[in-house]
C-alpha cells in the first residue's frame, strides 16, 4: 500500500487534475452532443470514472482512505446504473427500433 501511494505521488497533482477535467469535459460534451443512447451512456461512465480518478489521487496525496472508499461506492452505483441503462436501451430498440435519444421526447405528455 505504501508503494502504490508513493508511486502515485511521483506524478504531480496538477497532472491528475488536468487529466480528470479533460476526461470529464469529453464525457459532458459527449452527453450534450451525441444522439446515440449507448454513446451517451458510455460518456456518463467516462464522467464518473474521471471523478473516481481525481478522488483516488487526492486520497493518495492526503493519505486519507475515505476518498478510496468513496470510489468503491461510486463503482457499485455505476454498475447498477449500467444495468438499468442497458435494459432501457434494449427496450428502446425493441419499441422504436432506434437509439436516437431525441425520439424519447415522445414520452413527454
Amino acid at each position, binding site marked *: 500500500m505504501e508503494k502504490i501511494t508513493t508511486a502515485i505521488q511521483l506524478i504531480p497533482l496538477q497532472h491528475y487534475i488536468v487529466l480528470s477535467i479533460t476526461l470529464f469535459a469529453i464525457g*459532458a460534451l459527449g*452527453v*450534450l*452532443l451525441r*444522439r446515440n443512447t449507448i454513446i451517451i451512456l458510455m460518456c456518463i461512465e467516462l464522467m464518473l470514472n474521471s471523478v473516481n480518478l481525481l478522488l483516488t489521487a487526492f486520497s493518495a496525496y492526503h493519505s486519507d482512505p475515505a476518498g478510496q472508499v468513496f470510489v468503491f461506492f461510486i463503482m457499485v452505483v455505476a454498475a447498477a446504473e449500467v444495468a438499468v441503462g442497458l435494459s432501457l436501451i434494449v427496450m428502446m430498440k425493441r419499441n422504436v427500433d432506434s437509439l436516437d*435519444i*431525441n425520439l*424519447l*421526447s*415522445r*414520452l*413527454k405528455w
Partner: protein
Amino acid sequence: MVEFSQLAFFSVLIPVLPLIGFLLIILLSRFLKGNFSGILATSLTGLSFVFSLILFLKHSSGVGNAVEIDLFNWLEVGRLRIPFAFLIDSLSITMMMIITGVGFLIHLYSIGYMKGDERINTFFAYMNLFTTSMLLLVMGANYLILFIGWEGVGLCSYLLIGFWFKNEAYNNAARKAFIVNRIGDLGFIIGIILVFFTFQTLSFSEIFPQLKGMLPNNALIITITLLLFVGAIGKSAQIPLFTWLPDAMAGPTPVSALIHAATMVTAGIYMIARSSLLFNLAPLTLDIILITGMTTALFAATIGLFQNDIKKVLAYSTVSQLGYMFVALGLGVYSAAVFHVTTHAFFKALLFMGAGSVIHALHGEQDIRRMGGLKSKLPYTYFTFLIGTIAISGFPPFSGFFSKDQILMAAWAKHPLIYILGMAGALMTCFYMFRLLFLVFHNSFRGTTHQQEHLHESPRVMTIPLVVLAVLSFAGGFINLPALFGGNLSFSRFLSTSLADGELAFHQISHTQEYLLLMLSFLALLTILLWAAHLYLKKKKLPSEENVKLPAIQNLIYHKYYIEEIYDFCFVKPYTAISLLFSRIIEGKGINAFVDGIGTVFSFGSERFRKLQSGNISFYVFAMIIGILAFLVINLVV
C-alpha cells in the same frame, strides 16, 4: 317554593310541547303516515292549552301578581345580561290562552282541510313551530326573547305562505311578506338597541320601574317608541307596510286563520301593550299610532268593499280590524286593544275557517262571483259564518259589539270626530261582510255544474271547530261587560296588573249619552244591513266581471288605490335598476374582470413556460451544465 317550581314547570311545558311536536314530526316525517302527524300536533297544542288554562286558574286564584321565571343566564357580555326568562302575568296568560286555544281548534280543523296533501307532515311541523315561536313571543320576559319569537313567527309565516311553493305567485307572496316584515323589524331592532342604551337592560321588570320619575315627551323615549311602533307596523300590517297581508292569503286557509288573523298579526299590538308604560310617556307617538290606525282601518275597509276573492275580503277586513286595535292603543286604552285582539281572534278565525270550508266544498274556487246558494248545502258553515259576520259587524250582544264599543266610547271621550270616523269604518265592515255572506250563501249557485254536483258539507273534524268558535264569537264579549250593562269591565281589570291604561279606559261618559250613541250606531248598522240585503238579496246585484269598465272611483278602489303599482314604481323598480347596475358594472366589469384577470395572467405565463419542457434531453443537460458553470463562475468571482 313548591308552588313556584310547579308554576315554572307548567309554564316551561307550554312552549316546549309544540316544540317537541315540531321536532318529532320533522325528524320522523318519512315514517309518519296519514293523519298521525296532524293528530300528534293537535293533541300537543291541546295539551299546551290545558296547561295555559291551569296557569290561568292558578294566577287568578292567587294574588294575581306577575311572576318571572328565570330559566338560565343566556347571554352575558360586559354590561349586557340577558336571562332566558318567562314573564307570567295577566297579559301573557291571556295571549297564551288565545294562541293555544284558537291554535288547537285550527290544528284540529287542519286535519280535515289538509287531508291528502303530500306534505301534510311538513305542514303540521311548521304549524307547531309557529305555535312555539308565538308562545315565546308573548312569554318572553325581555325584549330579546320577544324578538326571537317575533322572528320565529315571521319565518313560519314565510314557510307557510309559500307552503305550495310550486306555484310561483305563492312563492313571491311569501317572499314579499318576509321582505316587508324585515323593513319593520329593522326599526324594531334599532328600538331594542336604543332601549338597552337608555336603560342598561332589556328585561321588562327592570325597565318599567325606571320610568317612574320620568316626564313625558322625552325625546329619547319618543324615538324609542316610534321605532318600536315601526316594528309593529310591519308585523301588524298597517299603512304603509300592509300590502303583504292580502298577498299572504296564498297560504293554506288554516294558515290564514291562525297566523294572518288570530295570532301573528296581533304581535305588534301585544308588543305595544306590553310596553304601555313606555308609550304612555310619549303622547306624540300615541297620536301617530292613533292616526295610522284610523287611516288603515278606513282605507282597508274601503278596499274590502269591492274585492271579489273570498279570502281577500277577509284579509282586508283583518287589516281594517288591526287598524281598530291600533286606534285603541293610540287612545291609551290598551286593555280594549287586547280585548279586541281576543274577540277578533275568535270571529276572524271562524270566518277564515268558514271560508276554507266553502273553498274546500268548491274544490279551490275563491271567486265569490262563482258562488252563491250554498246555504242549504253547507248548513253548519253557513250558520257559523253568519254568527261570525254578525259578530264582526258589531251587533249586540255578539262579542264584536263589546270590544268595538269599548274602543269607540274611548274615542268619543277623546274627540267626537274619531268616534265618527271609527263608526264609518264599522259601517263599511258591516256592509262588506254581509255582501260577502249574501253573495256566497244566498240566491242560486253560479259555478259550474260539476262543482254543483260535488257540493258537500265539510267533515265533522272541520265543523266542530267552527261551532266552538261560533259559540265563543257569540259569548266572548261577556267577559268584559261595561258598566252600562251591569258589568264592571272585568277583563280590563284583570289586565290592569300588567297594562297601564290611560285615563280614557274607565271613562266617565254619562250613561244616557252612552245609551244614545249605542242606539244611534245600532240603527246605522241595521240600515246598512238592510241596504246590503236590498242590493244583494232583492236586486241580486253581482260584482262586475274583470273586463267590465267600472266608474272611476270604484275602479280606483277595486285596484286597491294602485298602492301596489305605486310601491312597485317607487321602490321595486329603482331597486331592481340599482341591482342591475351593480350586477352589470361593478360585478361584471369590476370584480369579474379582476378575478378573471389573475387567471388569464397565470394561464398565459404557463403557456409560455411549458415550452421549456420540450422533452429534449440534450437541452436539459445543457441547461444543467450551464447552471453549474454559472454557479462556479459566480463562486469564483464573488
